[in-house]
């Protein structure tokens, strides 16, 4: 990597300066990335650049242009990810990346701006995106970077493991699921855009590994935390991408118990996918050994079937999933459905 890593003491001062400059000019802004992680007190680490998302990109770039004695424009990203890179001339080595309502792979929406927190640290006030948004923005970075930039990829997985440890028992899973389902990332940086849920399911074993390696949790505790996190999240993120990924991993894993343990799937989630597969005659399960009909699989995937809210609710109902979970799933599918379910539930 040619860019230098910016130490915490440098980026912290630089971030504080630019945030106060943007805020004093009535530009909504928030930190994310490694800096956001530090401000949320997860862990402080050096970074290549300080990522800041703004709601008024044009006004921000105009403002920084006025301060070009201090902030020098050094790069402009493509239209797909509109962002500007500045060099903070006073804080030697600190680079600032200003993003236009976007967090790497997800868009900032009104709700995300409402969830921006103002963190009062001992040296000042830092606006920072919520931990749910921070987690969703980092999903997929391990997968896309692990072959080209292994060191950074590992850092991303460690960051997510830290966030999971901090929020697994207090996160807003409905919101997190919504953010993950709304985001997408290019496969390998240049391939086709794939939903973040596809990356999430693949990265779950890596997050678990980091919980034991970097956060030094005992295996049992790491399992418990990951199971708690993934069971609450994956029941709300029932997507075609996860379905296809799990189907494709059946031949290599071979057993239901291994599949469940590898990707930390709860009974509800596993039964949901299994029900869909059985309905389409895709798999046969006998004594925990699961066999896949690969001919039918191709046809099944080619159909590009999407899970509609109706399919999800119907399937989960037949599996006896509790009303609370059912509502949560419906909330992620469509608001119309929530109303309907709420109505039925109240009149039941």
């Amino acid at each position: 990597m040619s860019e230098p890593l910016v130490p915490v003491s440098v980026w912290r001062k630089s971030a504080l300066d630019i945030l106060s400059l943007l805020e004093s000019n009535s530009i909504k802004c928030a930190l994310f990335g490694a800096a956001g992680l530090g401000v949320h007190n997860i862990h402080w680490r050096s970074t290549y650049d300080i990522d800041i998302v703004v709601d008024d990109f044009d006004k921000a770039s105009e403002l920084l242009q006025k301060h070009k004695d201090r902030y020098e424009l050094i790069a402009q990203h493509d239209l797909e990810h509109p962002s500007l890179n500045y060099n903070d001339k006073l804080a030697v080595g600190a680079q600032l990346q200003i993003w236009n309502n976007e967090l790497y792979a997800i868009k900032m929406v009104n709700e995300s701006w409402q969830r921006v927190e103002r963190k009062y640290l001992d040296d000042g006030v830092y606006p920072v995106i919520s931990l749910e948004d921070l987690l969703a923005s980092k999903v997929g970075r391990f997968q896309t970077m692990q072959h080209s930039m292994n060191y950074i990829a590992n850092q991303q997985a460690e960051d997510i493991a830290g966030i999971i440890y901090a929020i697994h028992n207090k996160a807003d899973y409905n919101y997190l699921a919504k953010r993950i389902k709304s985001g997408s990332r290019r496969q390998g940086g240049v391939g086709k855009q794939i939903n973040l849920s596809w990356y999430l399911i693949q990265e779950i074993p890596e997050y678990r590994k980091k919980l034991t390696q970097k956060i030094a949790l005992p295996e049992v505790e790491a399992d418990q935390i990951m199971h708690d996190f993934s069971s609450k999240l994956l029941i709300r993120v029932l997507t075609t991408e996860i379905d296809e990924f799990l189907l494709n991993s059946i031949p290599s894993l071979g057993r239901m118990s291994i599949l469940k343990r590898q990707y930390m799937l709860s009974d509800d989630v596993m039964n949901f996918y299994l029900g869909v597969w059985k309905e389409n005659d895709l798999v046969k399960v006998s004594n925990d050994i699961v066999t896949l009909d690969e001919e039918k699989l191709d046809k099944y995937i080619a159909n590009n079937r999407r899970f509609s809210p109706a399919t999800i609710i119907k399937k989960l109902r037949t599996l006896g999933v509790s009303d609370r979970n059912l509502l949560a799933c419906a909330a992620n599918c469509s608001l119309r459905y929530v109303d309907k379910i709420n109505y039925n539930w109240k009149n039941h």
Partner: protein
Amino acid sequence: MVNYNDAIVYNLAVRGLSISEIARARSLPITTVENIFNRLERRGLIVTRRERRRVRAEPTHSPLARICEDMIMLRNNASSNPEFVVSTALESIGIPHAFVGATRRKYRNQEIRNELQIAVPSQFLETARDRISDILAGYGLQVTSRPADTIGRANDVILCQVFTADRIQTEDVVIDDQHIPIATTALENELRQTYAELQI
């Protein structure tokens, strides 16, 4: 005399935060913040004013105010570079030491985390641990050897892991006239085989 809590409250108060906002931001009881406000006002650092039900502070030109700002700077420096203060402290009581793992990588690979990994001879293990926690407590920082304890409190708690080595082999890195003894590659490799915490 002002302590670190006073300095933190002072810095937030002069940025316009009320007593209740400071209490919420720093997870302190309101009465503690009120007491600090009273103390700071008695010593002439701030003047308080009431805005409806909120109490806010305005800074004065007290020379002590500058000390509060410096204290925060010192604390942040000790938090991001704990090896500076720890190295001086251990040298003063004659404990040979070498920075290993994450702290060594800071000077070799520019990978910086607020972690302290240090090797000392086995007979000095307990003394070194006590001295490190004492010196960092002086900066208002707590020390832990469990990485999980730092998550959510990374601003106040520093991960400090002390390892033992038979022979301390170091190479000096000089930063701002201060010598930081980091472990040689041989010592680092030797310890990496013994301790899982040092593996990358």
